[in-house]
């Protein structure tokens, strides 16, 4: 049952083509009649807001879901992808947002595990064979290294090497740059270009418009589960793409309202923190946060940001130093007391659910997570107030949900995140610590979040903004503190610095250490 597409003869045959793909989850239409095609030697960017169906669509290509209707063509032949196994055989490789690697195995074994070679023993040869692939595409992976010793970017390179080893000629990357530093992103793009030049077809999902414009040849835009347009990258610009994605005009300027900086709120004094494994992750960090300012914290992922947030929220023990809130040491306070003092912490982890939300509870119940005990001595919870809050948050952040009684785990990643941020902002905290608030959020939602943060700042809150997108931080924050391997490599005024300078400060220590070791 193999049919040939009668496409226009002038165009080269598409490496992969989707026609009229529809996918429903219960009553929710995730994908509606989507058309999309990628040629060999081309990079296609897939752009769309949260919940517009990008990941669903790509999961159908990799055999995780099956379309309710519609067809997939590979090199002009209609195929049915019933399982990830089928996708592998068809040469489709997907790099998921969350890496699918076994931490306790070496890089080579992670690859050998899924390879089709049927032999009883693992031989030394696997290291050479897997290294060859890396050489061919300029991937920087040490095949004998264990995954738990790898940095995020190494893990990603390994994922790419893995699918290439399995023979993938169609590569799908779901938000690959979300966890990378600018330098690492640049390197990833070089790899992608080299793969393109060798005839691969690449689909990349990303929210960052500058990256779309930099790397892609064409852009397909999804909106509310439908493909609204496909444009040539060279004929478009960020404003047009945003309009297509959101469906109306959106300003791409981030405001930085001038607010008179008030009294000191938080004073972190020579703080040293150890991780749960006893490794020093924050070393001798000092900074101040005042009313009416946004202090950005830049740094490579895993530079101690998580522990810093948790320490301020009272969830992680302090090794040395002190944290003062309005000149009062908070070390001995319980998390609940800190919440009542008005210190709010929202950390968006890579999986977006780890902390801060109870996934199986509905939006209403999640709204009262932190203040359910604050309605006096009654043994009963006040669900009515929580439902009101839920309604407001859903409206103001445009959360896509069937109702406020929907369990949070049923929402798409971006919407889950909005529930969390909405709750924290709604509580009008004095100190708002927010880590990666826009991680994986679409443009429109990101700007809503920025506006909300600015509003809080104008109301006199002090905001600690732990971020990853330097462009955004340069526009939004008043000051930026750069962390590098748990140390402060500098605190600079956002208006007086550049992206390059920040990038250098982020890696400064590690590079000097490399030199030290080499010398």
């Amino acid at each position: 049952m193999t049919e040939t597409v009668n496409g226009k003869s002038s165009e080269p045959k598409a490496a992969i083509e989707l026609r009229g793909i529809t996918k429903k989850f219960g009553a929710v239409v995730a994908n509606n009649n989507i058309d999309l095609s990628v040629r060999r030697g081309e990079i296609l960017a897939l752009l769309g807001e949260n919940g517009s169906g990008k990941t669903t669509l790509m999961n159908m290509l990799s055999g995780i879901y099956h379309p309710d209707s519609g067809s997939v063509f590979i090199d002009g032949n209609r195929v049915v992808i019933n399982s990830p196994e089928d996708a592998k055989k068809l040469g489709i490789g997907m790099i998921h947002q969350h890496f699918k690697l076994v931490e306790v195995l070496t890089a080579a074994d992670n690859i050998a595990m899924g390879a089709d070679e049927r032999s009883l023993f693992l031989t030394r040869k696997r290291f050479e064979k897997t290294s060859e692939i890396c050489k061919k595409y300029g991937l920087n992976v040490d095949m004998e290294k264990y995954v738990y010793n790898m940095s995020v970017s190494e893990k990603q390179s390994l994922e790419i090497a893995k699918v290439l080893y399995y023979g993938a000629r169609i590569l799908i990357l779901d938000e690959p740059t979300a966890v990378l530093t600018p330098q690492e992103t640049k390197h990833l793009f070089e790899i992608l270009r080299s793969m393109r030049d060798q005839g691969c077809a690449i689909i990349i999902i990303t929210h960052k418009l500058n990256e779309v414009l930099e790397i892609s040849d064409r852009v397909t835009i999804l909106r509310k589960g439908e493909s609204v347009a496909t444009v040539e990258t060279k004929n478009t610009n960020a404003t047009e793409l945003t309009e297509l994605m959101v469906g109306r005009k959106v300003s791409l300027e981030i405001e930085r309202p001038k607010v008179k900086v008030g009294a000191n709120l938080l004073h972190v004094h020579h703080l040293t923190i150890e991780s749960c494994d006893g490794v020093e992750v924050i070393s001798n960090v000092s900074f101040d946060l005042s009313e009416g300012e946004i202090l950005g914290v830049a740094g490579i992922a895993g530079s101690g940001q998580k522990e810093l947030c948790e320490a301020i929220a009272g969830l992680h023990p302090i090794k040395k130093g002190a944290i003062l809130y309005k000149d009062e040491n908070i070390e001995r306070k319980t998390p609940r007391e800190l919440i009542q003092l008005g210190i709010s912490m929202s950390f968006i982890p890579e999986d977006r659910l780890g902390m801060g939300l109870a996934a199986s509870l509905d939006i209403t119940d999640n709204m009262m997570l932190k203040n359910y005990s604050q309605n006096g001595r009654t043994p009963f919870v006040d669900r009515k107030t929580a439902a009101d809050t839920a309604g407001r948050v859903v409206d103001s952040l445009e959360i896509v949900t069937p109702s406020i009684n929907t369990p949070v785990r049923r929402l798409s990643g971006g919407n889950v995140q909005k529930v969390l941020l909405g709750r924290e902002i709604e509580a009008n905290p004095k100190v708002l610590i927010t880590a990666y608030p826009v991680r994986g959020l679409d443009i429109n939602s990101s700007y809503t979040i920025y506006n909300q943060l600015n509003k809080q700042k104008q109301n006199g809150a002090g905001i600690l903004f732990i971020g990853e997108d330097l462009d955004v931080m340069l526009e939004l924050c008043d000051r930026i503190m750069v962390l590098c391997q748990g140390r402060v490599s500098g605190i600079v005024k956002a208006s007086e610095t550049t992206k390059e300078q920040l990038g250098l400060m982020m890696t400064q220590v590690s590079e000097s250490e490399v030199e030290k070791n080499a010398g």
Partner: protein
Amino acid sequence: MPDNPNGGAFVPIKAKEPPFRVVKRAELPLNRLMVFYAISILVAVIIGGLFITINGVNPFSYFKEVFSGCFRSGVAFRGLVRIIVPLLMVSLGVAVAFKMRYWNIGAEGQLIMGAVFATWASRLLPNLPAPAILLIMAVAGIIGGGLWGLLTAFFKCRFNTNETLFTLMLNYVAFYIVDYLRNGPWQADPGFPGIGRLAANSRLPQLFRLDISWIVAIVLVFVIYVYFQYTKQGYEISVVGDSISTARYAGMNVNRIIMRTMFMSAGICGLAGMLKVSGVVSNYTLDTGIASGVGFTAISVAWLAKLNPFGIFVVAFLFGVLEKGCSVAESTFQLSAAITQILQGLILFTILGSDFFIRYRLQRTGKRGEVK
């Protein structure tokens, strides 16, 4: 087969689709849900009927006997209620722990310890008036069962022990404590293992010729419902059950919640033990058979009802009907007890299986997906 170096055409996989595909359903409204459960029970009865037929008994008269074995007379119905009450209470008890994702499979032992403590109280205070001693016994039962459960929670919080193993093992300890007592300090007749009947003041009063434990059980259904649905503690249980790190983040004292909840879960089982030992059903006697597997059946009941107290009431009732009715039918038709158990297993299996069809549906593939 590493890499496909020439980048040429791939051998296309034949576009063959399986005839059906599993598709997730939208959430069903309650009335459709009921239809599903009704169908699954019907299917279970049909399969069970076939099985009965193979054993040479007319399935219609068998099921008629099952039904009339429960409802034909006041005596039959009271027998049914006596089976249901402990099962219902213990199911509610384990549901409290399950809601927190705490795998309490030690209800059996907790029930026994509740009964032991209640008996102890009764033996210590033989001369109190009935209402006072019964109240003291109830408290003793709750404490006895509760401590038996709290022990596992304490070790869980302190040393992160596995509660599944711990609660399970304590069942045996409790069982042999009773064995020791009936052969040792509490032995009634020398040379014969057994603890004497409770004194008259320690026996439950009757209402409608049933001891009042059934009232306690029904009240408890409502209490647990309100507790889960509307109280702060119930809310805390849900959050801890969902994610411990989220609970900590919200400022909850997770260890305290785990211990409190487990005390409550086990305490309810202990109360069930107290009610059983001071009721007709045990002949007012503490013996090793006091729990008789209720603690394990309760696990199925709680999960089948998805931890909903009213659901637990319905499921416990149906389980009671099965148990009582089948035992009557078993003796009427002189079938072996094993056949009853197989039948119960079949019914359980079908109902659990129907859950799949409630969450997913099979979709025919084919024509709709074709290209034109």
